[in-house]
């Protein structure tokens, strides 16, 4: 009983630590420095990779 609790807690701590390390890595990489740009970047790349030009929706004049 105690043993299994310890194993489970340690396991959850390990998973959590993994996520935490990824978080630290992304902060160090500067992923949080520009929080405005990515939402637009996402829309732009979409069009270039897949559909041919002219088929995009929401076209502006």
């Amino acid at each position, binding site marked *: *009983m*105690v043993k299994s*609790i*310890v194993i489970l*807690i340690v396991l*959850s*701590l390990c998973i*959590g630590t993994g*996520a*935490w390390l990824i*978080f*630290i890595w992304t*902060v*160090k990489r500067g992923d*949080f*420095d*520009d*929080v*405005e*740009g990515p939402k*637009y*970047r996402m*829309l*732009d790349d979409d*069009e*270039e990779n897949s559909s041919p*030009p002219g088929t*995009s929706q929401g*076209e*502006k*004049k």
Partner: protein
Amino acid sequence: MSSPDTCVHCKLPIPPADLVVDQIDSKELHFCCHGCQGAYRIITGAGLESFYRNRTWDEQGVPSGAFEADYDEPSLAGHVIRRDETTADISLIIEGIRCASCVWLLEKLLVREGGVTAIRVNYGTHRAEIRFNPQATTPAKIFSAISRLGYLPHPFSPGAAQQAAAREQRSLLIRFGTAAFLSMQLMGFSFALYGGYFHGIDPEIRQLIQYFAAAVATPVVFYSGWPFLAGAWRSLKNRSASMDLLISLGVSTAYCYSIYAMFKGGEVYFDTSAMIITLILLGRLFESSARNRSISGIDKLLRLAPDSASRVDGDEVNTVASASLAPGDIILVRPGERIPVDCQVLTGDTEVDESTVTGEPMPILRQAGDKVSAGSLNLSTSIRLKVEKVAAESFIARMARLVEEAQNRKAPIQSMADRVATLFVPMVTTIAIGTWAFWWFTGASHGEALLNAVSVLIVACPCALGLATPTAVLAASGNAAGKGILFRGGDILELTSRVDLIAFDKTGTLTHGQPTVEQIIPASGQTETTLLELASRAESGSSHPLAMAVLARAKTAGIQPDPAGLVTAVPGRGLKMQCKDGEILAGSRTFLTESGVEVPTIDSDTRTEVHLSLGGVWQGLLLLHDPLRQEAQQTVRALKKLGLDMVLLTGDRPETAQQVSENLAMPDYQANMSPADKTAWIETRQEDNHTVMMVGDGINDAPALSLADVGCTMAGGTDIALETSDLVLTRPDLESLHIAIFIARKAMQVIKQNLFWAFSYNLVTIPLAASGKLAPVWAAAAMAGSSILVVSNSLRLGRLVRRTFSVAKPPASD
């Protein structure tokens, strides 16, 4: 694809003389210059036409004429950071980025440039990091590639202070992330412990879980909570009490007692200490990112002045750092370069774009003897200038310093929290010690006396107090942002709620800022058409709102202006043009009278007059009218109902001002005000203990906007004005001013309720705890309950705003 008189590429209106027509894909396209045509060909040639569909440009771009400068290698080389033989980095700031598509275009096109390996453009700060192969390309080539597209690159090396700020922001983020991650783990353990407390738990397992809880809580307290502990230590050394001390006191008591209880077999409160730290760090994170945004605004202002200047030493011209220029030095500024420091023109006539400094959109002629400000852009010819002020004393630096000072001032709310702490900390400590002493001397066991003292410290925990203001400020600014209103911080929210006098600028604020020609009154012997032709000839090179109105009218009358001649602009007065028929003057009555033209008296009602003369003879006048915003009247009425005083401050004639104030039922007006008059007027009102808000639209109101307790700008103002004002209305709708004041007042109400609750909670629970009626576990629960109450009271704000404004008025269409 575009209307015939705006450029396909840059969307700026095309002065008729500069029209460039190109046939691309059997379509006729109009450009304002060959630079734009070239950029269009580059972009379409690269298959990136979607740029033109996706972009949304609301702001002014880089004026034409800015692109003639060459980039020279030696001065750029200093900014290059070499990694190894084939990799080097350079940081730059790119002027002219107006939307996300610009970022996209730059990234797409520059990686196709040979030798560029990676590029990342930051949309928020307009900074770009470029990694390139120095053997394949040079910084100058990259710079010219950027400028060919119509953007203006500046090399950029962040200062020590900025790097420190960026590091601090990152470390804060990591501290918070760590605290949040560990608190989530801790929550799981606490759940088990709480369950055990109510339903019984095997002591061995409880001990085990407590060890785990201690293991995850320790880094939260000592790593994430380090800023608070350090702050508390500082304030102890200074013998002053601060919020940090109060937080540290609560956190460390809960933590230390838990450690003690863990070994003694009692209940632990690690979750209390971890939660306090996590929540307060979250508040700090929001605060610091708001501050960083405003720092990047100052950045933009400062980088307008170039780092290097060309100093004339005898016969040779040396490139020196702008900071080393001394008053009396002679410098050379070529077309396309910005002026590094405040100067006086020695030789050369040139047109200068001062829009960033004065907000005046059209270039101004500067001749020998005229003064020019740092940051303005030299457009037409090379000029020699005498340095008047050192870089640190120049206009831009002074301006940036003013803004920075304004932003670093301590928020009154925060200082209030500190004042509270000054009273609260000694009081709570005394009560805790008193409790312990009382129980000890009345014969209770050592453990019981300590337990009661700890209960006091835990219920007195400043959680509700600490959350009272930040949550309300967050809820208020979040809801305001949804309505297109940006408060530049909690103190602005508080000041806005206390405003009792609003000063309005007229043009562009109460009116649309787009005048139209209403009436044409030619002199006898002239026809409307000839007068209009004359007017459009003089105004065709200008982008002043009045000139645009005249040109628009000329176009509907089918007049093609013939812009032959040299135009000189006299700011605030009018235009002078030399042409084959003589000198044309177009401008205000005073402008013509001063130039010796006899102007007859004409009842122009309240409209703006543009008089015209040819060769010293009055030819007639145009009457222009700038209509009021349709919601202006309603807003003024609503604001009056809130008990606010309003006044109109305008540079216009008294007649116009009077009519506007009558139309709007605005009680007071001041006409013929220069920017300096406006400032002086606001100052006298502030001396009478008024809290003044100034609503304006441009940087030429900047002194008044920054002096006023709250400076409010509306969308459409210059970039810098928007970045530096306290309150920004992003929709061109005056109604949002009403909403802003409503939200600010409600937010202050909520904050007061919160503080009141937090205090009365302490007032009730501290005596309970001291009398030994409250076990620490109940104290912790009560504390959590009070926090929830405070947070939900703050969230009430959103509902309040929605109920008041969306039911009363259907959403305005843009």
